[in-house]
């Protein structure tokens, strides 16, 4: 038994040293296994995208053809499933950005009203937000789709935006509400003394101080909207209004589709979220810890 009170000279003690070597080897093996585990599905996308059409499933585990043609086809919209590709990429971007802006706006207004204005019974709103956050969005999808027909929003990007904002806002409220507690109320007080209205407080004091949390919430909403599939697929019916997610599913639903084109689209579609992840990882990870959901 190694006890920390003994002088620490681990290298002179063969047992400890052996254990350390063993731990190191175990760590390397575990790390290697995790690396392979994580990357295989991503590698598979590339493997199929680089194949010739019709050569996707030949049992090769390394790219045989190194054919970048599928990316050219996607780029030039040179296949009939892909004839609106750039437009669809624009739709995805527009939909995700609008969701992000609306989510940040709505959630920050709510968290300001709850946290800074000391509204009575504020817990009702936070409870409702928590409830909506916990319940999976798939539970609402069937009535939601039928209701969108009532609202006359079928085949409209706005119906998708409505759905994404609905499901992104609750978590955003919880995070912002938690983070807002860190900002001293004295700031509001002194601004009040100077005659600021609540709107000015919100715009000039609250929003600037909440910036890190707003970024975290914005990224969350952006990725949620970009990555979501079910509502986009069900609410949008025309190729012109489709998002990239819907376009990929068109390949998936067909029995004889050029899988290499599909995987090229899938890779292009996966790039923005991964790029955002690598660029803004700090904010994303901070977002998980900043909203202490203590209500």
């Amino acid at each position, binding site marked *: 038994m190694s006890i920390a009170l003994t002088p620490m000279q681990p290298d002179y003690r063969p047992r400890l040293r052996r254990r350390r070597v063993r731990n190191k080897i175990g760590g390397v093996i575990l790390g290697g296994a995790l690396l392979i585990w994580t990357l295989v599905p991503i590698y598979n996308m590339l493997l199929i995208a680089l194949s010739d059409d019709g050569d996707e499933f030949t049992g090769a585990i390394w790219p045989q053809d190194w054919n970048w043609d599928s990316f050219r086809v996607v780029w030039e919209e040179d296949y009939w499933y892909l004839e609106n590709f750039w437009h669809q990429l624009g739709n995805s971007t527009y939909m995700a950005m609008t969701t992000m802006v609306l989510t940040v706006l709505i959630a920050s207004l709510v968290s300001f009203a709850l946290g800074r204005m000391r509204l009575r019974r504020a817990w009702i709103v936070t409870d409702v937000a928590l409830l*909506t956050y916990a319940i999976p969005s798939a539970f609402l999808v069937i009535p939601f789709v039928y209701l969108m027909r009532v609202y006359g929003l079928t085949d409209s990007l706005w119906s998708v935006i409505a759905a994404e904002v609905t499901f992104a806002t609750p978590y955003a409220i919880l995070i912002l509400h938690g983070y807002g507690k860190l900002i001293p109320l004295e700031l509001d007080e002194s601004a*009040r003394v100077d005659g600021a209205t609540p709107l000015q407080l919100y715009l000039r004091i609250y929003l600037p101080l909440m910036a890190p949390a707003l970024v975290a919430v914005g990224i969350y909403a952006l990725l949620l909207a970009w990555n979501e599939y079910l509502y986009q697929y069900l609410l949008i019916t025309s190729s012109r209004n489709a998002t990239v997610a819907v376009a990929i599913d068109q390949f998936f639903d067909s029995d004889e589709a050029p899988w290499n084109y599909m995987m090229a689209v899938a890779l292009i579609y996966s790039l923005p979220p991964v790029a955002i992840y690598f660029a803004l990882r700090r904010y994303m990870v901070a977002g998980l810890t900043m909203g202490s959901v203590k209500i």
Partner: protein
Amino acid sequence: MNSTSRVLELGSPIGATRPGVPPWRFRLQGSDTTWAIAFLIPYLAVFAAFVVYPAVFGLWMGHDPALYDGLFSDPQYLTMVVNTLVFTAIGVNVQMFLAFLLSGFFMSRNWWIRSLLAIYLIPWALPALTAFVSIHYMTVSQYGLLDSLWRELTGEDGPMFLVSRSLATTANILSYIWKWMPFWTLIFIAARMAIPQDIYEAAEIDGASGWRKLVHVTFPLIANVYLVSTLLFTIWTIGDFPTVYFVSSGAPARQTDVLATYGFHMAFDFGYPNRGVAAMMSALPVLIPAVLLLMRRIRVTGVQL
């Protein structure tokens, strides 16, 4: 009471003398209440139009008792219930436990483990759609990547994953773990980082080994996070759609459908939206207690998520 608030109290005498009210520095009154409600209106409107109304409409769609008779006599429904239970029980618990163990591995300050963590988290950012479609094509045919790898390693043909119900379910569960374990690992890393180091130092002085520190220090201190995460994740998993929809697509012969994909097919492929809603509603007796328990737990203890 500081001088600022005193100035404000002088400026707003109404309510300032009401007994029994805590000495708030600001009291909502008059125009402030109007402002606060105005700030809440956008969210309340979204909530009413896109949560309450669909929920009520859903209850109305699924109110007919005859729907449930039809549902419970459908053998596919029973298969689906079993699948959902298996998917949830294994997918959540194995995943949570592994994520907990891995969070310890990723606490290391080694540079290569830090970089590995960045790569390991990619599935969290990746769209479920593309990841699961890719896994679908790894498993769907004898020439998918997994079978090809199997052939390279053993020289024999690999299993046909999506022909057997148990292998297809395994593929679904493993894909689900692939996608979400990084997220939960991160949650546990955050929870572990919140534990003060001196507790470990004290345990070491008492002669605790690594294993005993894990069992008697780390685990009790993050037990609440573990419990709340597991509850929340269980609720999410009961309603998970993309995993089964893309990875096994219900293959073989709709034998691996779970709740959400069953409801989806009923409503949008077979044209029985009411039965789809009824299927979803049949999960409410499990879901509602779980949600209430979760909310109670979070209210009492608070948790970072």
